């Protein structure tokens, strides 16, 4: 039995290449852009080439958590930052602040790097940020609304054409988050504890409901419906992220702007900021080299390639000095939105919030529940999952 194990280990050792193994879940233009930046590294480091392996997103996290503790898996991988808390606690990923100096950290938008921090350590370098912003039809909206009152003022004209002032995924916490933060609410308090049942959160829900009641927004809109409404001219504005660009039909005149201020509080409606990062396996073979590759993939030059080819909202400040990137209005708008975002919490508790919150929003939007009670029950449900039998 032992010999068989040895044989297996040998086989595994043979299969492992000499280069730096990187797992990613990109496809399409993002994959092409990544391959181009990897090719630049490979030309400079023929002895230690980057080997890109595309892993389906659905299986990504499970594959990683089972492979890395056994000493297998990739050296580097690309993943959104929301699992950093789990993986850092479980010792799956390597802290990297040792290799990072002020100059490197200065290259990125602060919100993007601080999204990669868990318990005072840095775990990844950001590749692209994802946040919501305001898409609007230039034929229906002359100037993008800067306050929610201006947004609501679009309603009467839109009602006449059986349309809405704004369409967004309002039953989802991710879509609702701009109002939640705009009213001063949050999901987790500053110390990382769950803090859902606040008066601010209840007011944000009240506001989301009022949009539906006033006919300013469709109830329970989801991705495909939002896109259809926008393309048919039945939604003057849409709150969505960079991925929405692909859903807009040809011939629709559109632009992107920063989300408006919430008129009731005077605060910016602030969406969650997610960031895709290059992370390092705690069992990477040559960690110094792996970090070099990581730095190369997130360098300003690589960022410009990704911004041009895949239209990724790159977090590198210098990339926006490039004339081609600078002239891209979409990237500029999402770049401007970054100033008014809330980093997505990395705490494991966050992952338990989505479903109960969605349930609550559905009830609120249908007018079947009172916001003040609803936020209480969401918090109770999340707490019950957190404590459990210990």
């Amino acid at each position, binding site marked *: *039995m*032992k010999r068989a194990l040895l044989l297996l280990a040998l086989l595994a050792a043979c299969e492992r290449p000499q280069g730096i193994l990187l797992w990613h879940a990109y496809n399409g233009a993002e994959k092409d852009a990544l391959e181009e930046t990897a090719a630049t590294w490979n030309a400079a480091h023929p002895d230690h080439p980057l080997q890109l392996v595309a892993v389906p997103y659905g299986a990504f996290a499970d594959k990683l958590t089972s492979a890395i503790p056994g*000493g297998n898996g990739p050296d580097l991988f690309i993943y959104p930052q929301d699992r950093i808390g*789990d993986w850092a*606690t*479980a*010792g799956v990923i390597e*802290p990297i*602040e*040792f*290799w*990072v*100096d*002020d100059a490197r*950290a*200065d290259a990125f938008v*602060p919100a993007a*790097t*601080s999204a990669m*921090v868990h*318990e*005072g*350590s*840095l775990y990844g370098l950001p590749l692209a940020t994802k946040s919501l912003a305001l898409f609007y039809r230039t034929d229906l909206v002359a100037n993008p609304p800067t306050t929610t009152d201006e947004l609501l003022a679009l309603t009467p004209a839109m009602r006449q054409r059986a349309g809405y002032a704004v369409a967004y995924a309002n039953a989802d916490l991710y879509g609702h988050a701009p109002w939640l933060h705009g009213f001063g609410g949050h999901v987790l308090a500053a110390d990382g504890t769950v803090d859902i049942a606040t008066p601010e959160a209840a007011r944000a829900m009240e506001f989301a409901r009022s949009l539906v009641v006033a006919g300013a927004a*469709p109830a*329970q809109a989801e991705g*495909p*419906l939002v896109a*259809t409404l926008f393309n048919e001219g039945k939604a003057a504005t849409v709150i969505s992220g960079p991925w929405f660009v692909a859903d807009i039909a040809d011939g629709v005149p559109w632009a992107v702007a920063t989300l408006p201020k919430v008129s009731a509080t005077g605060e910016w409606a602030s969406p969650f900021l997610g960031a895709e990062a290059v992370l390092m396996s*705690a*069992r990477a073979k040559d*960690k*110094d080299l792996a970090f070099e590759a990581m730095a190369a993939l997130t360098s300003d030059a690589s960022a410009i390639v990704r911004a041009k080819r895949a239209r990724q909202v790159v977090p590198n400040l210098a990339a926006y000095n490039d004339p081609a990137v600078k002239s891209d209005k979409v990237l500029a708008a999402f770049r401007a939105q970054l100033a008014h975002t809330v980093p997505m919490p990395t705490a*494991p*508790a966050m*992952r*338990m919030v*989505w*479903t109960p919150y969605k*349930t609550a929003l*559905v*009830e609120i939007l*249908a007018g079947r529940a009172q916001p003040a009670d609803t936020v209480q029950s969401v918090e109770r*449900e999340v707490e*019950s*999952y*957190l404590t*459990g*039998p*210990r």
Partner: protein
Amino acid sequence: MRRHLRDFGLGALAAFIIVTVAFVAFRNHDLVERQTRAANAVVSDALGGRTAMPGSRAVFVSRATPSTKHSFLRRRSMAPAGGPLVWRPLAPGSDPDAKLLYDTATRLDRAAASSGSRTTPARIVELVPDGSGRAIAADHAADHIVIAITAPASPAPYPWVVMLGVFGLGAALTAAGALVDRTASPSGAATSGAPPVGVAWPARLGTFAGIGVLAIPTILWGSVVAATLIVIIAAGLAFAQHRNLTDRFIHGVREHRTALGFLGPAAISMLVLVAAPFVIGLFIGFYDHHHGSWTFVGLSNFGELLSGGGRALDDPLNFWFIVGVTVLWTVVNVTFHVVLGVLLALLLTRPWLRAKGMWRMLFIVPWAVPNYITALIWKGMFEGEYGAINSLLDLAGLDGVTWFGSWIASFSANVITNTWLGFPFMLVVAIGALESIPKEQYEAAAVDGASAWQRFRHITLPYLRPALGPAIVLGSIWTFNMFNVIHLVSGGAPGGSTNTLVTDAYRWAFDRGERYGMAAAEGTLIFLILLLWNVFGKRLVRAKGATE
């Protein structure tokens, strides 16, 4: 004698596996113990100003200087312990272990911060997770941090010599026992051919002692469990010899060699793919899982489920509410499947029907399409604004339904989808049963003046029953455990109230912070419910069959 040694070989093989497992456990534990003790000693030496042991090293690492701009960036410097303090920056390339020292210092700071007091700082001691076998220890000195790294160590090699010696000793003891046995009963087993009846006590003692000897190394490694297991195997084997079981076993294997060869692959895959996950699932139900750490919690997962977790009975997250939904779901679906299946089967067996083959093929199509694809198609059709069903209702001048907004609509959407998926099975079973009914019976009944209902009630139904009974039991188990339709069509909406037990178990595992223990406990309860239903359902079918 040959068969005694053969029996010894069998027992020794089992004992050998146990010894090996015990050795691996002992070896890892021993390595950790040895190395952490060494690392602790090096730290204490450095704190006391003594030089480190050869092969290991001790260094001082300064406290962190945080960057003014980025709170997560810190600079440190290092100096070798045991001499004049010469500080140099702890930066990439400055030392082969620089990263390890830096991270360990950071973690020591974090441990101290979380323990809350600087007066009793937490010391870190552990194995470096790079496979080198080195241990690292860190502690606070007066105004800096001292970190020790031991020399690499490899775990103790497998004791082949000891194992061979013990094995030889065991074989000798067995042989000796067998020889004594033969001298005691000369007419005994020496000649091959007809197997002798029973084995005398000296040979049994020899076998017992021979295998028992293999427990000696495990006792030396302090593994009581392994030693006990081996002694039990030895005693069991001696007892089996007494009853002549080993001979019969070997004889049986020889006789059915071909059959076993064919069964082997299937049996092994069943063991690996069905039995092992099942047993693991049962065990996980007694553990709680939080962020990668497992705690034994006994029956508390089951308690939380069965007590409803302190929720009201009409709360969709209460276990009994979910049980209710699941039972309702099963009953409603199976009823629809059977009624629709039988009605269509009656229609399709009419003699006047043309193109029977085509109709049957058409009705089986829903069964032939993978059910998750069907579920996704229906999900799209139930969409509120642009879905096919609401569009049709709109054309008919009716109001559209918000399909996933209320419990009854959402549950109906699931049932419609699953009825579409489920009736072809009942249809096929019913057609088979109907075709087997002799026509003469109907003719005779018609001559006797039986009405259409009477013919159905007294001829068709009795013939259908034996075929439909098992199909209903099977169909109810499939429906009870139907994951795809509920997960993909309603997804539990609204508010988890259309979840059944299987989709709720999924939510425990993947939606509520990886509570695998709760999911496994719920899986065990599902298994128990279905086991009861299977036994009960079978009896029901049999009882019905007996009354005919």
